[in-house]
């Protein structure tokens, strides 16, 4: 059993390949968003627990370290959103040729960077109210 090669077969991949990078990024951002779901539910439960509990939760949620987490979550959402749409298009059987796939990978990168910048800008200008 232990002789069998087990995933992740990190040593056999060329890590610089865009196919590997886009795939592993989709997975990593998905995991980050799973963690974000916990934050969302924590926030919802705090609201449901009344004004005093919500004030206490806001004190926790507006800690400096968590600001970095929000930035990561916005970036993860921006990427996972467009990479997911790319996967949905693939599932219809379209865009699977190498040149099309390279083009869509570039499109996903550009779109997610633009969305990320837009979201950060909007979050900062939405009344200066980090949670």
């Amino acid at each position, binding site marked *: 059993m232990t002789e069998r090669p087990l*995933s992740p077969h990190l040593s056999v991949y060329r890590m610089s390949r865009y196919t590997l990078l886009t795939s592993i990024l989709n997975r990593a951002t998905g995991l980050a968003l799973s963690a974000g779901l916990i934050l969302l539910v924590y926030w*919802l439960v705090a609201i*449901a627990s009344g004004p005093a509990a919500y004030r206490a939760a806001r004190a926790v949620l507006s800690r400096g370290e968590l600001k970095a987490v929000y930035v990561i979550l916005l970036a993860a*959402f921006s990427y996972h959103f467009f990479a997911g749409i790319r996967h949905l298009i693939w599932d219809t059987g379209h865009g699977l040729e190498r040149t099309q796939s390279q083009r869509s990978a570039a499109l996903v990168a550009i779109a997610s960077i633009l969305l990320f910048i837009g979201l950060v800008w909007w979050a900062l200008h*939405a009344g200066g109210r980090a949670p």
Partner: protein
Amino acid sequence: MSLRSPLGKVLGQGSAKDGVHHWWVQRLSSVALVPLTVWFVVSLLSLPAIDHATITAWIGQLWSAVFLILLVITGAWHSQLGVRVVVEDYVHGHGSKALTLALVTFFHVVVAAAGVLAILKVALGGAR
């Protein structure tokens, strides 16, 4: 007439025709999450403030509560499907894999249940 038992006939016969189920619900939930996440981000960033009164008033609106509940359920479902695949790929050994998968499932159910109940409580005016 065959003397083979009904179980003997189907053992090793392969597909029970639900092989694409995981794939399909992953796609179904991702399609649903496109409008739901866009709605959530736009709504949240459009709120004039994020104090308790503003948020409860927002969740108190029928469609806000409906979409929020759908977002939490669909998000937890999609997350569970995704994390499951990662565990299946990277956690080796039957025992630890089964245990991790069970914990992942339980955890997502708890998160979804807590989220939905919290939204319902606020929507029904129980958080004032």
